[in-house]
């Protein structure tokens, strides 16, 4: 990739492979930094884990996995659904509008604590009004591209 000439600091970069020069350098740097972090923090971390002071777990015991994975699941369904419906009505923004309504309703229900009739009413109104308003302002008033 590069040739060393007389001085140890001299560098000649071959134009054909110049796209790899900086990324390779950065990858090496990342590797070295990762190693340095491991050396700096690794032993103390290992001791803390071995003594039981720290636990090797990603989630805290009181983590709300239902809301977390529910959010991720709803987002994936939202994106797929929006793309699918958007293809049925190209350049209209209907994919965004029509799929946002159930998405907002579902996510609000997921996030609300102690769901009652009053909350459900707010959630329903919000799910209907917010996407309609956003679609109208973005797509109709400002001609912003929507799925």
């Amino acid at each position, binding site marked *: 990739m590069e040739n060393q000439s007389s001085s140890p600091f001299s560098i000649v970069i071959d134009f054909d492979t*110049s796209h790899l020069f900086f990324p390779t350098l950065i990858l090496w740097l990342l590797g070295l930094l990762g190693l340095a972090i491991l050396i700096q923090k690794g032993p103390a971390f290992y001791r803390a884990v071995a003594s039981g002071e720290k636990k090797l777990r990603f989630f805290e015991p009181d983590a709300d996995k239902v809301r977390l994975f529910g959010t991720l699941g709803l987002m994936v369904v939202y994106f797929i659904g929006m793309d699918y419906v958007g293809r049925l009505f190209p350049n209209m923004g209907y994919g*965004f509008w029509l799929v946002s309504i159930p998405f907002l309703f579902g996510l609000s229900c997921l996030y609300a604590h102690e769901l009652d009739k009053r909350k459900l009413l707010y959630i329903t109104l919000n799910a209907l009004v917010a996407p309609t308003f956003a679609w109208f302002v973005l797509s109709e008033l400002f001609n912003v591209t929507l799925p």
Partner: protein
Amino acid sequence: MEFLALVDISYLLLIFFGVALGIVFGAIPGMTATMALAVCLPLTYSFDLNHSLAFLLALYVGGISGGLVPAILLNIPGTPSSICTTFDGYPMARNGEGERALKIGVVSSLFGGLFSLAILYLFAPLLSDIAIKFSYIEKFLIIFFALTVIASLCQSMLVGIFSGVLGILLSLVGVYDTVKGGNGDIRLITPALEDMLYSGFSLLPVLIGLFGVGAILADAEQGVKEETEGAKLDLLSGRKFDLSAFRGSAVNLVRSSFIGTFVGMLPGVGGSAASVLAYTQEKNFSRDSSMMGKGAPQGVIASESANNGLTGGALIPLLSLGIPGDSTTAILIGAFTLQGVQVGPLFIGENVETWNMMVLSMFIANIVMFVVMFFAIKYIAKVVTVPKYLLYPIIIMMCVSGAYAINYGIMFDVWSLLLFGLFGYIGGKLGLEITPFIIGFILGSSAEIYFVKSLESFGTMTIFFTKSPIALFLWLLIGMSVAFSIYSNKRSKSKTA
């Protein structure tokens, strides 16, 4: 003054709307000025540059200012930059002086905002004039310096640098652009992804994903607690607001505003550092600091004038060097990119009209912020009770519309949003530092061009040290930021020992 001809009713309405919306975002705990800009950026797609910037700058001013509302009323900083406002603002609110504390904060915010604007107006053109003379070598060293400064303020400098370098790596994905002097070849992706990632990851989905979706995922894991419910807002039972609260605080106001502006100029440092620094300085230097932490107006004055001082300061490196001063101004780069305008040393000279309009927008936004917050504070205070279960879904919806529209309808950008939202959430749990990461991502491709072209031209690594006295001066600054990090790390270790 020809630029004043561009001021029309839509311009003023956008500023008003931007400030009001920014205040709402800032006032809701967990939502930040950065998120406000990220979510609202798609609204600006159809605006011209001046209107777009007026709206976004108004959001910025409103977003930073709105953070004082929950800080005072709920003891929860609405934005990280209001952290120290809680120390005295909340005790004041508990004594029935909620409205007084809010109004002291609003007046201080106005002073800090206007002070930093004056500094911006005076110094950004001067710094640009100097920066125009910089070669690729000095430009590369400035980026290097920016990353070391940001990293030195992280909990661990090594992790901070690692995060910044990771950001640089991701910015290199895709084609080595011939327009920038590259050879047009693709790197760091498999052939299957070439179509989608030919130009790399778009900035906006990355930003919105990290700051919008990432924050919501983190809160989802915590259960999206409705902490504002049941909060009793006692605004008026205690002492009323009058200007005597500022008696003897002139030095505090000016010093804190200056600290905020200066901290804002340091790339990536952020408002919380400005707030903490100004608060501790007031505690150290005031004649009577015995009441600080128990409901002293001077604490609110220090914190709020400092965090609004940040707004003008953070724009100085952005407009004169092309380096964002904080994560919020990083999003402003997105607005410039959308309009095909490159920020850097030439920006002010080549876009005098836009520059003047930006300063005017900031000025009007500060005045509007003051009027809205001062006279409608009782109503704004109610914003803190808007439940997240209604807001978060709207934010995700707006994030999606922004990501999709950035490249005129590419679904991959929406998936990038989710990808970087997950990255922000998981990275945060693993200890990665998001601010250096994002600064690295924004500046990575420029860093590559400056570095590689310098080596292609001079053929030796020593040129980075020997090119000019400015280069040496920058190395000195880099050394100082590293030394500062080592020193502060040792000091905090000895304190905890």
